[in-house]
């Protein structure tokens, strides 16, 4: 039971990170109908920017950890958002109304280019960051000598995720930007006719998605304490899987999918073999899709004959 509780906590932490990245996939898919394959790389860039920001802030003498983390978060969100904007502007906008596979290929190209770019400019070695926040609560001292612990970092990650999600839901459901976004999702042409600035809305979607990915990046960095240029690929694939599992295009679905993938991985690794945790995640995705072809919370696609 203790072991289970521990895995649950770990799974939720990992799932939060996946969920935040997955939102970027799902938002972009919802609005422009493309898989933004470079989104994993955006996450990686977010993590790197956060790392550089933290180190710079420490170097500048801002050593109060909460303040440094908060500042790093703001910096990373802003700059990664800019990266998201630039990627859309450069690689996707010229292909907006074109062939469906074309932006998929540019996204793969972007992904390769960004990975190499970071490897070139930051070096290919992994970057260890000593834990910035240590300690936590011990929830129960198990009889068997196994203690369930909940670290401060895990609390921060889960709380941040909930807060970011709340702010984000408010943004989508109750602001004019959110309305514009939902309108573009339904019918881009009609939205444009009704006076929605489609280009701006799509750009902002990429910016928001990238900013959320950078939040995930910062938390990943702080939680695992190490990143490298390749980290975006694996996390990206997992998050994309999460988005599809939840039903691509559905925002709560992305979060749910993220949590599920995180839990599946952690539990599989905890109870079975760590090597096959990815196989478990992918297999469950395949099985779910076979029975629910549009994911858990996705709108079923009705083919009009």
């Amino acid at each position: 039971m203790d072991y289970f509780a521990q895995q649950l906590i770990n799974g939720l932490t990992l799932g939060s990170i996946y969920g935040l990245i997955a939102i970027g996939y799902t938002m972009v898919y919802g609005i422009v109908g493309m898989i933004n394959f470079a989104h994993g790389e955006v996450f990686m860039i977010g993590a790197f920017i956060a790392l550089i920001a933290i180190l710079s802030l420490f170097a500048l003498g801002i050593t109060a950890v909460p303040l440094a983390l908060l500042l790093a978060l703001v910096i990373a969100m802003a700059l990664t958002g800019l990266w998201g904007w630039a990627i859309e502007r450069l690689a996707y906008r010229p292909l907006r109304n074109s062939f469906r596979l074309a932006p998929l290929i540019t996204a793969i190209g972007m992904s390769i280019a960004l990975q190499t770019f970071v490897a070139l400019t930051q070096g290919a070695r992994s970057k260890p960051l000593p834990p910035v926040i240590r300690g936590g609560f011990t929830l129960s001292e198990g009889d068997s000598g196994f203690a369930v612990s909940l670290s401060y970092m895990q609390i921060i990650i889960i709380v941040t995720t909930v807060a970011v999600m709340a702010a984000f839901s408010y943004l989508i459901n109750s602001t004019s930007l959110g309305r514009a976004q939902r309108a573009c999702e339904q019918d881009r042409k009609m939205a444009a006719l009704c006076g929605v600035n489609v280009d701006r809305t799509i750009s902002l979607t990429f910016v928001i998605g990238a900013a959320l990915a950078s939040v995930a990046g910062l938390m990943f960095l702080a939680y695992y304490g190490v990143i490298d240029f390749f980290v975006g690929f694996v996390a990206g694939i997992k998050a994309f899987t999460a988005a599809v599992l939840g039903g691509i295009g559905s925002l709560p679905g992305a979060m749910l999918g993220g949590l599920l993938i995180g839990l599946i991985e952690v539990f599989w690794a905890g109870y079975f073999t760590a090597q096959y945790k990815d196989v478990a995640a992918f297999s469950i995705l395949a099985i779910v899709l076979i029975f629910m072809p549009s994911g858990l919370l996705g709108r079923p696609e009705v083919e009009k004959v």
Partner: protein
Amino acid sequence: MTDTLQPETSPVTRTLPRAAITADVIKDAGITFLIALLLFGSIVGLRTETVNGVLVLMPQFGKALALAAAVAVGRLLLDVFIWRRMKDGRTFTSLIPSALPILKGAGALAVVFGLALYSIPGFRASLVAGAGTVHGALGAVADLLTFACESTFLVMAAMAIVRAARLIIGQTPEEAVGQGMLRRFTADFGREFPIALLLIALVLPALTAGPSQRYAIDTATQILIYVMLGWGLNIVVGLAGLLDLGYVAFYAVGAYTYALISTQFGWSFWVCLPLAGFFAALWGITLGFPVLRLRGDYLAIVTMAFGEIIRIVLLNWQSLTGGPNGINRIPKLTFFGLPFDRTGEGTFASVFGLKFDPLHRMVFLYYVILALALLTNFITLRLRRLPIGRAWEALREDEIACRSVGINTVTTKLTAFAIGAMFGGFAGSFFAARQGFISPESFTFMESALVLAIVVLGGLGSQLGVVIAAVILIGSAERFRDLEDYRMLIFGLSMVLVMIWRPRGLMSGRTPSAFLKARKNISGSFVKEGRG
């Protein structure tokens, strides 16, 4: 009055707007500079380095500044010379009024260069030696130019031979009248170009000599593997319109089938080859079956997941696959039983009374993969004209209409998966036989993405497009090997640029599978890309 009237084609449409640097161009470049500075500054400006186990920051703001400046200048130039002048609906090519002379010049240069290369003894050797002394970007660019010139020359020479042969047997190419040298030469391009390529492919090992020969044959073999993979995937993605992101799984199945059977049972390549194809096809059906109901991107992610699952299993099933260490000492290809060994009885060299040369094996491998690729192409072209091929394409165009005319969409999709997978399996077992060593490392998602990129860049459904895209992507990637680090960066960026330039690929459009009066090519804008 009449003399002041403009002719029909008024100079207004002929002359280009003047290139001018105006205030808003400067402003635009300035904004670009600032944005680029923020972007690059955030990643390039401070480099993280581990010193004594501690991560420290090394400022390299100069680099960031230089990159941002380069981007700004690039945009300024594009803005002034291209975009501002494209506003009135001009195409990019019409902006270069002197395109034809440039083309002619380049062609002439290629001819002179090629003739020198093939007629002056020692020219190639000195060129290679010279290139060896230049390192870095300059060397790579020179190398690439050489590659481009030589390929152009070869293609032109082969096309001249094809044309000559056609004239001798009494065929006259269509539209070959008048219109100047170049026009006449390229008339009937669509028919003569593939034959010319085939001609080059057939004599390629004889075209080079000396130290660059091994390199050339090796690169060509590598390209042909990807051509074959591209053709296999083209059936699934290009014809049937099913987006498959896990194609590498079948490549892996083929490779491991050969590796395992040959190391365990000692069966020969030629026995294992059909088996590899069979197992890959079986996997194609097994993986295809559950995903039949899925559409578009759901299909894409599940195929990708399957690809990853297979790789992870290969990585972790140590007892069977050797895990990350892979499988070693896979029997190499023999010449129908005669090994390409340096010593021993009954080797290829001894039987044919030749001096041992590792080149023999390479040339043989090259012809094997060429034969396999040609077989793939032949079967695919044939299938396209059979009911099954037409059903694939109909499936891509409209699945519901397919059902309404009595096509079983389930079996149609599965055959596409199976046959595509089979060719992937063939390519895989060849790969294993060539390398002698395989590990899961060779079968990553990037490989799937690369093959898909070849298919899409070439133009969905186009066999010739796959060849061109594979030559460009794999050939230039090989050429840039000196620049190991920058290779993938350039590779990724050029994927983006080429796609923006030609979203439907280099060879868009399709050739009808049957015709009543005349075979007319169909513009790519009508052809659907499938939703499955």
